[in-house]
Each structure stands twice: as structure tokens, then as C-alpha cells.
């Protein structure tokens, strides 16, 4: 799809969401919701002793099954899968730079995910929740988070070029 058209459509989805619900889109919050609720279920004693998890479960007494972002991400999975089906892109695959092994790619993805997961908690939102949704409502916090994400991406791109380039 033409990137500008995709952007326009994404903007309309975001606008519709803001109009109906008063809030923007997100992604990392759903990961947080699922992970922390799992910790509460699996190790309730430990969760009660960890201040961040404790305050989270106090704020969300209904658990992940009543969390807005969890439902939204379930939708993302459905929507992305549907898009993959009609564009013939569904299938077990691993995408990596030309000079690394599959194993390196998986490890890098896990490490990168961990950085992103940690950073999104510290920065109160990821590219979707803070940067994109923040831009739509002109939030200063959202915009500086966006600048920091992409600025740091460029700053470190050279160091990790072997992961991606020839």
C-alpha cells in the first residue's frame, strides 16, 4: 500500500478511536497488562511485595480480560492476520540481515524487545501510545518521547549495522 495512503487510513483509525473513546491507540500497555497479571496469578506473594506490580493490580482490579488495550491488541492480531491473508504474506518465517544467523536474529529480537519493553514502561508508552497518539493530541510528553526514540535509533544505528546491512 502507498505509505501516505496507509498513513492517512491509520490517522482515520486513530481519529475515530479518539472520537469514540477519548483515548488513542497503544500496544506496550497490553503486553504489560498480560505480563503483570500473569505474575499476580503465578506468584501472588511476590506480586504483593513488588510495589510496581502491586499498584498496577490495585488500579486494574478486573485483570487483563477487562483491559482496553488487551482487547485492542487482540484486534491488532486479527487485523494484521487478515491483512496478511489478503496480501499473501502469512507463513512461518524469520527475517534477518544478510550477515547474521537465525539464532543471532532471535537473540537480537528478544534483547531488542526487552529494551523496548523496559523503555516503554519508563517512558509511559511506546511508539503507538506515546508517540503516535501523543502527536494526535499535541501532547508534549508524547512528542519528546517520539524524538527520543527515533533520535536514539539513529544514534545507535551505526553500532548495530552488522545486524542489518551487508
Amino acid at each position: 500500500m502507498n505509505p501516505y495512503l496507509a498513513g492517512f487510513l491509520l490517522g482515520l483509525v486513530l481519529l475515530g478511536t479518539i472520537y469514540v473513546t477519548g483515548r488513542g491507540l497503544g500496544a506496550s500497555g497490553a503486553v504489560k497488562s498480560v505480563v503483570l497479571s500473569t505474575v499476580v496469578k503465578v506468584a501472588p506473594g511476590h506480586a504483593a511485595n513488588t510495589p510496581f506490580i502491586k499498584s498496577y493490580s490495585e488500579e486494574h482490579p478486573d485483570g487483563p480480560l477487562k483491559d482496553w488495550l488487551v482487547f485492542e491488541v487482540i484486534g491488532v492480531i486479527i487485523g494484521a492476520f487478515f491483512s496478511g491473508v489478503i496480501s499473501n504474506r502469512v507463513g512461518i518465517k524469520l527475517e534477518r540481515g544478510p550477515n547474521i544467523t537465525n539464532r543471532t536474529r532471535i537473540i537480537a529480537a528478544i534483547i531488542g524487545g526487552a529494551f523496548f519493553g523496559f523503555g516503554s514502561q519508563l517512558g509511559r508508552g511506546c511508539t503507538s501510545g506515546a508517540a503516535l497518539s501523543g502527536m494526535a493530541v499535541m501532547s508534549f510528553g508524547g512528542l519528546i518521547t517520539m524524538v527520543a526514540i527515533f533520535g536514539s535509533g539513529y544514534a545507535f544505528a551505526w553500532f548495530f549495522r552488522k545486524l542489518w546491512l551487508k
Partner: protein
Amino acid sequence: MGPLVPFIISNEFNLIIALIAGIGFGFVLEQAGFSSTKKLVGLFYGYDFTVLKVFFTAGVTAMIGVLLLAQWGLLDLSLIYINPTFLWSALLGGAIMGVGFIIGGFCPGTSICAASIGKLDGLAFVLGGGLGVIVFAEGYPLVKNIYLSEAWGGVLMNEMLGMSKITFAFLLTTVALIAFYLTGLLENRVNGIPTAVNKKKKIIYASSIGFAFVVLAVIAFFPDSKNRMEARINKNVVQKDFTSASVPADKLASEIVNNYYQINIIDVRDTAAFRVYHLPFAINIPYAKMADRQWEKILDQKHKINYFYADDQQVAAKAYLLAGYLGSAENYILSGSAINFRKLFSNLTSPGAEANKSEIDTYNFRQKAATDMKMLVNALKNSSEPVIAKTTKIKGGC
């Protein structure tokens, strides 16, 4: 008026909305090619700026749309979620996310898309994300100070730059267009092949840009719905005759005594004046705040009759007109001011011996009404306290 949740759409149904919004979100992200990590990191190595194009177009589209809906009076900007600013945690968190982006090749939303269509690296990134959340939760005491420092609240970009929202919107749209142009040049250079833009595409691009600026100009130069309503009220308040909508104090007093449960008495003066004196059972809705969401239940209903009063007859008339625009309730104005009402129903002096029958009747009526109102107010003290309705601020963010 939006947002529709939780006033028009319940919080339970909101979860279905979340699912639908998510489907749209996931579909567009995947269609844009964001399930491919090569496309995503292309941004950082200069060979593919799709991320920037999609991201900026989406942000600008939504931003202009939000302003347009607000101008039409369809969206109440004071209720929508604004990501709060915590300066250091936003910058440091963003920097850490940037590292994650360049190592992992995804961001959370795109990794979920990738995992959905079977990309194992996407799945690994999602699992890594969960790991990162656990590390943060466990290590929270160590970063707590950074996490909570420099809390500025929901400040807006335009406030920081000292400009109006619309000026900032113009600015950001222009920046986006310049970025599209420059990254296009860069992309061609890095890839060594110029992308051909045919005539049809050029026309579409030019007209889309034109359209965006026309919408911005409309927002900038046309009065918004609030101003239009204000102008209409100011015109009508002079021209219209309010005799049929006015109710004398005695009539209202008898309504209070006999039908207090069927009427709303609305004091549109400011809160200070309301505190000094107000009519029995009166609710304080200052004129400037009448359009607030929390009063919708009073101004737009068909069960109770609304009586408006102020110190100034014209203010009461304006409130009456505004109430007519805001809702479908049956509205009246109290003739005379609050002070007048107070004079009539407190410290009554009995008429002299030479008073005629109608004067004595009036005195007796007012005397009885005053006692009855006092009695009623005392009897219903608990239920007649002005109800402080809370407007729920919407929660959001990741």
C-alpha cells in the same frame, strides 16, 4: 458530543470498540508493510522511509481531524486523554526504546503484527517485551526517582512553544511535508535509483496537500461552534421577547412548595454569589460552564422543568437561550433577580391595617410559602444538597 465513552457508549461496550479499533490498527500497520523488520529499520539506514511517511501522515491526519471535530463542537478536547509529561523518564525511556528498535527491528505494535502473520522474529520481540516489563517491575525502586521526577502534567506542544493549537498544526504539517520531500531525496540517493512519480500521483499528492491546508485554514479562520452559538445568543437576547418564558417569583415559590421534585432551579451566577445566597433547592451552574458534560443530564431531559435565574435578567435570558441549544428540557426564567426573590420571601413585614384584601392575601401567601420552603429544605437537607457531578477524565496511554 464526543468522546462517546462513557456517556453514550458504556465502558463494557468500549471493549468491543477496542477490538474494532485494534482490527483497523493492525490491518493498516500490516498493509503499510510494518510486519517486515527490514522495512522498519530502513528508516535508520536511509534506504526506506516508509515508517516516517506512514507515521507522520497518520499523526498529522489525526491531529487535524481532532481540531476539526473540536471546531464543529463534536469533540470535547478537555475530556480526551493527554499523555502526561514526565520529562526525564520520557527522554530516557525513549532513548532505551530507540536502542530496542535498532537491535530488535520492531516496536511493540509492529512486532505484534509480525507475529500475527507468522514471523518468528516478531514473536521473539513480543516475548522480549514481556521480559523487559518484568525487569522494569522488579527494578522499579531503582528507577522510581527518574520515573516520577519532573512531572509536568498534560502539557501540550503548542503551550510549550507559546502558540495557538492551529499555528502548531500548520507548523507540524509543514514540517511533515518538508520531511517527506527530503527523505524522498535521501532514499533515492541511498538506493541509487530515483523513484519515478508519475503525473497521476503528482496530482493526487498535490491535491491531498492542498486539502490538508484548506482544512487547516477552515479551522483557523472560521468561528468555532462555541463562538457561533455565543453570537447567536447575543443577537437573540436583544431581539427576542421573553415574556412567555418568564415566571414571577410568587409562581416559582408555589412551584417549589408544591412540585419541588418536578423542577430544577438553576442558579447561573458564579459560585461565590451562589454561596452567599441561593434559592431553595437551587443548583449552581455558572453560565460559562453550562456546556460542560456534567450538566447534560439536567439540561437535556424531559422529566423536570428548569427555572433559570441570575442577578441580571439578561444573564438569565442568555442562560435560557443557551439551555435551549444544549438540550430539549422545558425551560423558564425567573423574573427579577435572586436578590428580589430573597426580599420577597424573607423578613416579611405584615401589611398595615389599611391594606386591601389582595395585599393581605399576598402577604399570607408569601408568609406560608417562606415557611414551607424552609421546612422543605430542612426536611430534604440531605437530598437537596447540590449534587457535585464529576466529569470522568478518560484514562489512556500504554
